[in-house]
């Protein structure tokens, strides 16, 4: 047993190191990797967020804050709809749980593929509404949107119900 420990370390010496020297070589990110946030506009440039507060209510860390504006007509459709006056995310305490994206009924809030850079000041980790819209234009979006995630959830629910029925039968 004693000799085996020595053999293991000796064998390792001749194996290829597994280290990625981070800034010089970057490990390829998984296909579904996502972090960081962005707000989106529709094809006419109108804000998608309707200020429904669903994201603010579900955020486990309570770091997402929305200020809803009164309803008014949309310039595109002419129908009355909600608006968000302000939406901020303090990513200092963000868990990355993506629940805010999952509940978004209009797919306005998404996560981005590029990570937030390490910051020198706490304020830089605070994502303002302007910054979120800027991210939406500048960064690649993650695959997940509210409707996609909710659709998957529904499928799961349906499957489970069918299974339950089969078991009952």
């Amino acid at each position: 047993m004693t000799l085996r420990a020595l053999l293991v370390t000796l064998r390792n010496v001749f194996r290829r190191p597994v280290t990625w020297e981070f800034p010089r070589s970057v490990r390829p990110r998984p296909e579904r990797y996502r972090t960081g946030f962005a707000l989106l506009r529709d094809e006419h440039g109108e804000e998608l967020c309707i200020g429904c507060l669903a994201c603010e209510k579900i955020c486990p860390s309570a770091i997402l804050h929305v200020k809803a504006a009164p309803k008014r007509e949309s310039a595109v459709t002419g129908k009355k709809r909600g608006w968000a006056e302000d939406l901020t995310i303090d990513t200092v305490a963000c868990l990355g749980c993506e629940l805010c994206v999952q509940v978004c009924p209009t797919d306005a809030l998404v996560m981005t593929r590029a990570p937030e850079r390490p910051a020198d000041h706490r304020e830089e980790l605070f994502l303002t509404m302007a910054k979120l819209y800027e991210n939406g234009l500048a960064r690649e979006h993650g695959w997940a949107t509210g409707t996609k995630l909710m659709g998957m959830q529904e499928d799961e629910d349906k499957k489970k119900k069918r299974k339950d029925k089969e078991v009952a039968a």
Partner: protein
Amino acid sequence: MMALLMGGLVGVVALTSILTATALGIWFERKLSARMQTRLGPTIVGPFGLLQPIADFLKLLQKETLIPDGADRLLFVVAGPFCIFLALATAAFVPISPDTGLGLDSGLIFVVAFGAITVIPIWMAGWASRNKWALLGGMRAVAQAVSYAVPLVLAALVPVLLAGTLSLDGIVAAQQGFHWFALWPTFPGLPAFVLYLGCLLAEANRIPFDIPEAESELVAGITTEYTGMRFGFFYLAEYVHTLVGSAVAATLFLGGWDGPIAPGLHWLVAKTLVLYTVIYWIRWSFLRLRADQLMSLCWRYLVPAGLGLVFAAAALAQVMP
């Protein structure tokens, strides 16, 4: 006057070369340990990360050196330099080539004595820190060093008996022409060599005998309260101790500077490096022994084994002059 100046100059050169060797030794150990864990180790500072120990040294110099409230200030400050002084002083007695060396007829006694008093600065640090972890670490270090000094000396007595002299030059001279004590006579030479190497690990507080440090139990043992360069002294002393200890082991059992073709110093350095590598190979492969296992291993197995080897060597020395 000239002699004094020359002595000082030689001293400076010797110290610089030992400390440089130690810095390279630290780099080598970090690279080796990294490869043993399929990592890369230092790569950024200098070619292959060779300047990493210098970067570490500069970092330690910049750090604030704290002295805890209620610490014994004088002992606390003096312990580190004292520790490294003793580790370096041992190097003075190692014969590096046929015509250098102090020519003492009892060099081995000095080597063993300097190795043994290393517990004093360690205990100074443990006591002066006024910290329970440091105190426990210091107590463990003393218990360990005092116990393991016995089999260490017994193992070192084997080459003394075989060579018939306490002088390190004499011991090397007796091993001329591949007559190394670790190889011939195989008994008691080889077991004594293994015993010596094991006790050397304990003397230098290296795994599997590193309970004085025992990160998982004692934070950092005696160095818990030390910061900056004051910590650096202990860190450096440990590596110097291992390096010089390897050189002494190479002198006693592997024929020191003896070897064909290349000059003596090359052979000594090569042998030292091999032993140094083995020590760190062991370090990165094994777990730490428990304090009671350590004591029982020493007094119940190693000391009787050492005594047996000494008797065997004495008998052999009588039979073949």
